[in-house]
């Protein structure tokens, strides 16, 4: 028996297929994960993400603390409410977790970190917060509902009422706002527009039921995974972990090198890696025939194993298999046509290296291969 979110009883009553995820009993799907996937791309769906960890950091030195703690730079957040995606690294530059940090005010920032990394994240935060006299408060009292899809914002405006609508209607992407006891951010993990709503746990079921009554489809973790992979977003524990640096998992863009005087945990290791050259790189793959790419399948370039798939799946939007793979940097340039082979159950199958994302806002991002090149 795992931990349960305030919405667990609803999931169980609606025949959600319950699986363990990071110690939580969570719905994998409610019947068909492919139909759920399409609902988010074409209309609107909602996810119970209350298992994720919400942590508030408060204190007069909270900015200095986050300058030291995070690889991205919170000074990029100019206005209260702005959000930033970043990694939290160990001394070796390995990723302890990836997270979103929200700027609430100069003495108060909010982090949303992964569920499966809860214990080590909290321990790491507590360990480093003391020196900055920052108070670390985990919010087990809060639930979190992500509403995603082209119709997501409209239904949230309708369900949460006029006052909330007026407060958030002009919210730009990667911005958030507290309205009464509800915290609403225009963020997500699907590649679609939408909101992530953080609210008191005892209000979650009521809001969820009202969203459901307006036709919002509940979406399980299965479709959450295919949506995020199509959108080119990494999954902690699959695409990166404590032995992988952001430079090796496609997250170079989240490392703020400037100003050079900012000393964040892991910086020295990243500098060394950057100077010596990064040996592995995360790339996108597509399979041009039947079959599904799976985690840990080997990637072969010119007869040699040069890496493996870190996240592989069937893309419902594209109707073909897609994947992230970590491959050796030197193997990438070897084939000018970006071709490689995948060892699928003992059979070598041709695949193509592409640049993620695969899908954004319901549309394929893959260009037709240039002919005659």
């Amino acid at each position, binding site marked *: 028996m795992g931990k349960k979110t305030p919405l667990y009883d609803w999931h169980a009553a609606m025949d959600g297929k319950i699986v363990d995820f990071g110690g939580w009993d969570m719905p*994998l799907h409610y019947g068909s994960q492919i139909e759920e996937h399409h609902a988010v791309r074409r209309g609107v769906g909602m996810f119970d993400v209350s298992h994720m960890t919400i942590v508030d950091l408060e204190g007069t030195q909270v900015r200095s603390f986050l300058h030291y703690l995070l690889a991205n730079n919170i000074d990029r957040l100019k206005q209260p409410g702005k959000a930033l995606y970043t990694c939290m690294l160990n001394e070796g530059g390995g990723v302890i977790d990836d997270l979103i940090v929200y700027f609430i005010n100069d003495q108060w920032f909010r982090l949303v970190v992964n569920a499966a990394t809860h214990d080590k994240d909290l321990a790491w935060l507590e360990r480093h917060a003391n020196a900055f006299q920052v108070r670390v408060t985990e919010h087990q009292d809060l639930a979190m509902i992500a509403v995603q899809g082209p119709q997501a914002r409209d239904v949230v405006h309708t369900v949460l009422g006029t006052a909330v609508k007026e407060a958030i209607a002009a919210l730009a992407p990667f911005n958030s706002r507290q309205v009464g006891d509800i915290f609403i951010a225009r963020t997500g993990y699907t590649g679609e527009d939408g909101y992530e709503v953080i609210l008191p746990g005892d209000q979650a079921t009521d809001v969820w039921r009202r969203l459901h009554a307006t036709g919002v489809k509940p979406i399980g973790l299965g479709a959450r995974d295919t949506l995020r992979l199509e959108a080119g977003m990494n999954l902690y524990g699959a695409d990166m972990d404590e032995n992988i640096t952001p430079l090796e998992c496609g997250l170079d863009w989240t490392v703020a090198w400037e100003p050079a005087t900012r000393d964040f945990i892991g910086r020295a290791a990243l500098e060394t890696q950057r100077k010596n050259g990064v040996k592995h790189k995360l790339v996108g793959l597509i399979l041009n025939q039947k079959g*599904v790419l799976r985690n840990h399948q080997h990637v072969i370039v010119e007869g040699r194993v040069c890496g493996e798939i870190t996240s592989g799946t069937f893309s419902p939007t594209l109707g073909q298999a897609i994947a992230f793979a970590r491959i050796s940097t030197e193997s990438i340039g070897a084939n000018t046509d970006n071709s490689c082979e995948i060892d699928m159950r003992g059979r070598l199958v041709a695949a193509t290296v592409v640049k993620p994302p695969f899908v954004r806002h319901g549309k394929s991002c893959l260009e037709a291969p240039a002919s005659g090149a």
Partner: protein
Amino acid sequence: MNIASLRPGIPGELKYTRTHEWAQLMDDGTLRIGITEHAQDLLGDMVFVELPAIGRHVAAAQECAVVESVKAASDIYSPVAGEVVAINEALTSHPELVNKDPYGEGWIMRLKPGNGADLSGLLTAAAYAELIAAEAH
């Protein structure tokens, strides 16, 4: 408690294998074959079905098709020895039929049992219900 009588999704008139195929004896003596409700539920949404060639001869318990779902690729084993006489072409463009109607529209192939093919080794509905109840524990 009689588990067999309580478990839905296991039609009494069909025969079953330990590898979760079902077989239905047709009036013409051929066997219609597919995967069970339990198997499709475990595998989740189907995305591809690889069908055998018509005319292929298969041995009992030999791999003869592959169903691939969002979760895993899974071999289909022939319940008995015989010759493939028909395949469900609709699954090529609509693999989800295996999920929606595993005992009907989601059938996979028809097999003409070979001489001496032995159907007596297949499980009854009650025996199959016991098998999956045992797997759950």
